[in-house]
């Protein structure tokens, strides 16, 4: 059979009136794919799972030996409230923890700061000092459970707290596993929990990456995140390109410290949003695995295959959740989770259907966990590795996605690289352009959102939403006050003074000073303001 002849015949008959469609991110999709649409040799571009270039997955056995980690992003109120929710989620079969912090903790304010007052314990758990971490992980064995922390500007402080709470549990540091997001570059662009200017922020990231490489061999000190670009409006291509470009910056910074690439690169991890266009998402993850492996091997000369492994977590939900007809969100998240698993994900958070309104209730959070469990145990999608490999469409789309990501990365380079583009607001503007384009596409009906611009119906029933407990502020402030009263004030002042002095010496690694301050029960706010005295504050380029 002649494939080219076949395609021509099909196009002249059935395909004559069909127009190419587009993925959610605007990549053109042909109505039919044939073997000829995928070029290049199998061994060079696809290969075996667990082998370079890792297109089919980072591990040779993938889910057959170990399913992805089910890690629901969760946290609210005080450490007691959140500890109880974690125990419930673990009892329901969740396999890892993911900590959501409140905004004051994320931007370095203590719970008794005036600006913090209305936000304490609202979108996540309030953490002021090590005393909160002792309660947060009470009864949770840190040698058996890994924890992911969505924390950025204050990530070094949280890393120190986790290390010390594990130490108090008697867990050896070589067994401590988890992740701090610690990707400050993307905070300047989206999500916005920056504190210090770009350069000192990068210094702190690099400090914690090298510290972790030396002390915590099973900990991921950074999760280079595209998710927040995506939810701010970026296309899948931009999400991937900006994230890989950020990854390159972090690798370069660690190399500049004189650390060999294979000492830290195996612990770099990634994090993305998975939206509802299933094949585009699968192609995105397969293309990024191949690209990162090449970057690490060819550009940075990595030799350890683990340095080339693109390990990633995902979140499903976000902007794809709608306020209208909220139960539809259950279905969206289920499809997104399917896409992530077909894309070879390592850990997953499936958002609850009511998260377009508020943080989830216990019932909606458990339903979101069940979504993953049904996928893992009933659907059979995890029975074989990379089941979509060899699909004419998926391989062709993977190639197309890869080329588009490379082109966007080249554009960022042409504009002066990621750091300069972030400082000038260039990336922010590119993402805002896409957010507006997508909103207008929804307004015009070009992009269909069920329940929003098609199949609208009268809203049925009332949702029972999570309610903010007004006693949180008082309970949290009481613990903070008690910590301030009972700690050795002189020791805290000495630790903060040492930290301040270290900040003034650019060559000095800051993690050891942060660890000592945390050990003395210095607070997040005290350490942050100490560093701010030296580093100053980021000046946001305000762009619409």
């Amino acid at each position, binding site marked *: 059979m002649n494939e080219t002849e076949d395609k021509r015949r099909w196009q002249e008959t059935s395909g004559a009136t069909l127009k190419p469609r587009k993925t959610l991110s605007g990549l053109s999709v042909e109505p039919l794919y044939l073997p000829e649409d995928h070029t290049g040799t199998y061994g060079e571009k696809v290969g075996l799972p667990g082998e370079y270039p890792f297109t089919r997955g980072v591990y040779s056995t993938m889910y057959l030996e170990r399913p992805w980690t089910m890690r629901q992003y969760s946290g609210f109120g005080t450490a007691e409230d959140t500890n109880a929710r974690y125990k419930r989620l673990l009892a329901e079969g969740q396999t890892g923890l993911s900590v959501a912090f409140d905004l004051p903790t994320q*931007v370095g304010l203590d719970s008794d700061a005036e600006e913090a007052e*209305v936000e304490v314990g609202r*979108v996540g758990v309030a953490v002021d000092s090590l005393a909160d971490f002792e309660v947060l992980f009470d009864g949770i064995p840190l040698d058996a459970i890994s924890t992911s922390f969505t924390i950025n500007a204050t990530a070094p402080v949280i890393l120190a707290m986790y290390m010390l709470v594990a130490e108090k549990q008697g867990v050896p540091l070589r067994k401590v596993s988890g992740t701090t997001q610690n990707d400050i570059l993307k*905070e300047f662009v989206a999500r*916005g*929990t920056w504190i210090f200017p770009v350069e000192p922020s990068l210094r702190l990231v690099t400090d914690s990456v090298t510290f972790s490489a030396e002390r915590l061999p099973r900990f991921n000190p950074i999760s280079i995140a595209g998710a927040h670009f995506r939810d701010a409006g970026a296309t899948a291509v931009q999400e991937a390109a900006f994230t890989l470009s950020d990854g390159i910056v972090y690798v370069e910074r660690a190399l500049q410290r004189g650390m060999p690439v294979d000492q830290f690169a195996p612990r770099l991890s990634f994090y993305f949003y998975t939206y509802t266009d299933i094949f585009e998402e699968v192609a995105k993850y397969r293309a990024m695995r191949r690209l990162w492996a090449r970057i690490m091997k060819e550009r940075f000369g990595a030799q350890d295959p683990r340095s080339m492994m693109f390990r990633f977590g995902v979140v499903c939900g976000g902007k794809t959740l709608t306020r209208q007809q909220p139960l539809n969100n259950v279905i969206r998240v289920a499809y997104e989770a399917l896409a992530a698993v077909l894309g070879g994900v390592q850990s997953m958070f499936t958002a609850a259907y009511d998260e377009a309104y508020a943080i989830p209730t216990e019932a909606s959070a458990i339903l979101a966990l069940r979504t993953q469990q049904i996928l893992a145990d009933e659907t059979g999608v995890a029975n074989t590795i990379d089941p979509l490999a060899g699909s004419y469409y998926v391989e062709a789309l993977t190639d197309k996605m890869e080329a588009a990501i490379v082109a966007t990365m080249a554009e960022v380079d042409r504009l002066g690289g990621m750091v300069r583009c972030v400082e000038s607001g260039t990336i922010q503007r590119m993402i*805002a352009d896409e957010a507006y384009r997508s909103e207008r596409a929804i*307004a015009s009906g070009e992009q269909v959102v069920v329940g929003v611009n098609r199949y609208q119906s009268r809203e049925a029933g009332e949702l029972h939403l999570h309610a903010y407990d007004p006693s949180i502020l008082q309970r949290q402030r009481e613990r903070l006050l008690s910590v301030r009263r009972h700690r050795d004030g002189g020791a805290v002042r000495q630790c903060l003074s040492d930290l301040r002095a270290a900040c003034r010496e650019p060559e000095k690694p800051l993690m050891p000073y942060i660890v000592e301050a945390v050990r003395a029960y210095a607070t997040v706010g005290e350490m942050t303001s100490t560093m701010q005295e030296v580093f100053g504050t980021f000046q946001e380029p305000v762009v619409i």
Partner: protein
Amino acid sequence: MPYRVLIAKPGLDGHDRGAKVIARALRDAGFEVVYTGLRRSVESIVTAAIQEDVQLIGLSLLSGAHLPLTQKLMAKLNEGGVKIPVVVGGTIPEQDIPVLHQLGVRGVFLPNTPLKDVVQAVTAIVEKAQQEEAVR
């Protein structure tokens, strides 16, 4: 003369997709738009609104702290005798909408509100406030 509006992010929330999309939609509809950037205090928002001589303040809130922050802002405006109308957008549970109206908020926009509806409503609110001002 085009109307001027201030789009503001009070509190600590850093999610500004909605604020920026609405700012652009209003700009495309002929408004002059001033955007504050992130993490602005209620005081600085009120000061900016007066200095920029805007005809409307739009608050974007996604952290769940919309009630106390809006309450603070309205109190600050009342304290200074400032008559600029305020609208609020973001992840607002429906039961909070009447509470916001009671605080004096003129319009509440939830996620997925069509852009043209926001533009129309904002235009109507500004025009009504201008008429009230003229009568006074």
